[in-house]
């Protein structure tokens, strides 16, 4: 199993190598990202090489050239003081960009370090910085900047520095959220146990998570800083001795009617830069999301099993004395069922095929297999609750004379819950946290059984008592988070049997529970099943649960049933290699390891003797 899995993953890896490509590389192949990067690079380069691109000095006024139109001497004209517009634009880029970069640097340094420290170490620094960011975010930024410039005088650098402080919560919040999420990851604990110091853990495991979102945030902050800076200087609050895009706007506005083009150049520059920064951030976010959207676990499992199905006959055991005792009428007959998922390229990946089984009234049929064997997919297809893209591609599911594979969704809604009930694996996630347990039990009964509210409430309380909940009234009024997992599963069982179903489908109903609770829930299921004479399909990976409750078992592997028969026959005379291997891997029957021996040699022989079961499992047989 391990070997074939390794080759499988190697093959997958080569397909994935494309998505491995570094983020920077992918940004360059993203069209939006590429355009934004090229334009931003042009803006920056033109600022850096301004002296090479124009021979004019941006601050030299010339009375001859006041408001000159576009000409050979002034490619973009001259402003109201006769200064060359192109030179002012290019040199202005230097100051505008540097100012915005100052704001960005200050906010990033404060926000990122603050977020790292508060998120990683917590304690008093956490509370203090939370309080401070709250304060900063409540402050009206523009008002602070106006007040500061009236007190400190018009300085572009000063106002940008203050703006950087005001913007620091943007970084703080982002980094704080990422760090607190990562800090509780097990790999951070493992790194600590490996002897890594905090600084190394932060650098290796935490900064890598924060890096990309921080760059996106940085691009956004830079854009805002440029806009705010231009706004302040347009209002005349800037330092008029240095050329900036904002001061050019101010100047152009004054002579708007005489030389309207003077307003165009700085506006275009500000517009292009801000748009490019935003596009850059968007493109980067898109690329990040593309690499992080893994297919959901369910789908991934389904996809990994798309391998070709080898056709082999199902090992069928004849009925034994016990199984002949079940004489209820046939409730469900699944014939040659196949389930497939549509893939983006139009093909279908088949996850279940050639599955045939029957369930009689009063019978518990176990579907047992390892993860990815198709047992849950089979159960979902009977309920017609396959995830998006999944459908029954072949075969029939005849329930009480009706083929469920063909009935309308509306007819299915009538059958689901009323005639076929479902018990899920995760009790907590299947109760709505915002409604009381009582209301979640009463509503379905009113809809499907047409009971009055009073009748439904009475029935719900009786059911809660029946499923062994000590204080039904209290649980009825409780919200899901107020009860334990075992209690929640009892509530779901009460809900499942509330409409008197003929068939109960339980998908790993006890997997999430502790063993002692599992035993109680199994007792409950067995009792209810006998009392209401239901048919039941039990999906599980646990052979102990199978032995406890099932009358018949189907062992599944790779989407197929490999062996089926009465429960005793499967345990006593397994015929298929896979069933034998699975049963061999069970540890129940093995002897205990015994106390630590005095010498290594005797310990080794102990070990060899103690593991006959696991020794049987041949790797080939398991795949």
């Amino acid at each position, binding site marked *: 199993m391990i070997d074939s899995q390794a080759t499988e993953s190697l093959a997958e890896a080569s397909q994935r190598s494309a998505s491995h490509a570094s983020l920077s590389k992918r940004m360059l192949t993203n069209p939006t990202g590429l355009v934004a990067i090229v334009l931003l690079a042009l803006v920056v380069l033109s600022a850096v090489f301004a002296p090479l691109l124009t021979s004019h000095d941006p601050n030299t006024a010339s009375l001859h050239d006041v408001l000159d139109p576009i000409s050979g001497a002034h490619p973009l004209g001259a402003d109201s003081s006769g200064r060359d517009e192109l030179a002012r634009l290019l040199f202005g880029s230097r100051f505008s960009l540097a100012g915005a970069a100052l704001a960005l640097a200050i906010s990033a340094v404060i926000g990122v370090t603050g977020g790292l420290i508060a998120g990683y170490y917590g304690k008093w620094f956490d509370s203090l910085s939370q309080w401070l960011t709250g304060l900063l975010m409540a402050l009206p930024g523009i008002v602070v900047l106006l007040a500061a410039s009236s007190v400190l005088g018009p300085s572009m650098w000063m106002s940008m520095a203050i703006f950087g402080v005001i913007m620091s919560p943007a970084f703080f919040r982002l980094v704080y959220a990422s760090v607190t999420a990562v800090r509780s990851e097990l790999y951070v604990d493992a790194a600590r146990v490996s*002897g890594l110091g905090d600084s190394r853990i932060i650098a290796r495991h935490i900064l890598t998570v924060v890096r990309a979102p921080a760059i996106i945030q940085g691009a956004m902050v830079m854009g805002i800083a440029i806009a705010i800076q231009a706004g302040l200087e347009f209002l005349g609050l800037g330092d008029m001795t240095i050329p900036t895009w904002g001061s050019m706007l101010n100047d152009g506005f004054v002579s708007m009617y005489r030389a309207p083009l003077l307003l165009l150049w700085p506006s275009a520059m500000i517009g292009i830069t801000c748009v490019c920064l935003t596009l850059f951030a968007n493109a980067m976010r898109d690329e990040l999301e593309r690499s992080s959207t893994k297919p959901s676990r369910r789908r991934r499992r389904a996809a990994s099993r798309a391998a070709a199905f080898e056709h082999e006959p199902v090992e069928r055991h004849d009925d034994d004395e016990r199984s002949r005792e079940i004489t209820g009428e046939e409730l469900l007959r699944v014939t040659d069922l196949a389930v497939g998922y549509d893939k983006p390229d139009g093909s279908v990946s088949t996850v279940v095929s050639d599955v045939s089984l029957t369930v009689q009234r009063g019978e518990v049929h176990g579907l047992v297999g*390892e993860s990815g064997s198709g047992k849950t997919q089979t159960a979902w297809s009977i309920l017609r609750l396959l995830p998006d893209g999944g459908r029954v591609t072949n075969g029939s599911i005849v329930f009480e004379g009706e083929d469920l594979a063909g009935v309308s969704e509306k007819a299915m809604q009538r059958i689901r819950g009323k005639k076929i009930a479902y018990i899920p694996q995760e009790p907590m996630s299947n109760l709505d946290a915002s409604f009381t347990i009582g209301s979640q039990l009463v509503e379905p009964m009113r809809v499907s059984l047409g009971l009055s509210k009073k009748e439904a409430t009475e029935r719900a309380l009786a059911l809660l008592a029946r499923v062994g909940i000590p204080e039904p009234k209290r649980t009825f009024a409780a919200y899901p988070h107020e009860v334990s997992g075992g209690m929640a599963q009892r509530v779901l069982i009460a809900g499942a049997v509330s409409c008197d179903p003929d068939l109960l489908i339980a998908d790993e109903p006890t997997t999430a529970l502790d063993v*002692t609770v599992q035993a109680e829930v199994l007792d409950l299921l067995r009792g209810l099943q006998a009392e209401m004479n239901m048919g039941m399909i039990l999906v599980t990976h646990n052979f102990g649960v199978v*032995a406890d409750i099932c009358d018949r078992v189907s062992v599944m592997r790779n989407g197929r049933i490999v062996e089926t028969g009465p429960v005793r026959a499967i345990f006593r005379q397994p015929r298929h290699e896979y069933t034998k291997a699975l049963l061999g891997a069970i540890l129940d029957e093995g002897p205990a390891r015994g106390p630590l021996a005095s010498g290594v040699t005797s310990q080794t022989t102990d070990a060899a003797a103690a593991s006959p079961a696991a020794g049987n499992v041949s790797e080939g047989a398991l795949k």
Partner: protein
Amino acid sequence: MTESSLTETLLDVQNVTVEYPVKGFRAQPFRALKGVSLDIRPGETVGLVGESGSGKTTLGRAVLGLAPVTGGSILYKGRDIAHDSRRARRRLSSEIQVVFQDPYTSLNPSLTIEDILAEPLTVRRMSRRDANRRVRDLLDQVGMPSSSGDRLPREFSGGQRQRIAIARALALDPRLIVCDEPVSALDLSTQAHVLELFRDIQENTGVAYLFVSHDLAVVRHLSHRVAVMYHGEIVEWGDGEQVTAHPEHPYTQRLFLAAPVADPDAQEQRRADRERLLAAQQEQRVQSGAVA
């Protein structure tokens, strides 16, 4: 192993209490461990079994220095490590290591397997070349192809990831590995292979395990001695065969009979035994209640 090494104790947990602060004004802290004691000898596996919330994982984390120990002491080779500074703790990393339950979150998804395995080595100033050689040895030791090094964790199945996590734990050649439910997330057949790997490694290296699990059968298979935890306390502690087959504490008895056995007739018998036991224990409670 000499006679003296058998009597010596590697880890001695004495009366350890762990309390987590609870949010809220003057709220009582939550006591996850209420005075727990056990010891581990070199080369020994001590199984720690219990249900969710019993404190078994907390005890493992306390030994690793990841849980706040508020009382008692944890002696490692005779020295109390319960209140070590982070710096002192880092020096212990070559002695005490960990394998966590969830192989999906215990490996950093953005690092390659080689980076993950070399991390503890390069921290100890091993050259990159020596570290890479050691990484190949480690991969070999846990039965992974040496070409796995430049791949990312997501390319491997749960069982393979757990092998990688075991390789990381072995990197510094520790004397004790805390295994926190290391096979609970794995399929039955994968679980059997990983358990065999744990045994092989122990026989080859003489490392000791503190093996935390909710599964009595797994613990029984691997442990020399077993401790049963319930509500933050150890309720039964002793030889593995004794505790798992002939439990004395009422809770251990309930736990033992609640685990379904994979044989329909034996399970029918066990179910009947369990019903009898529960009835008997109920009666006992009623009687003791009447006396009190």
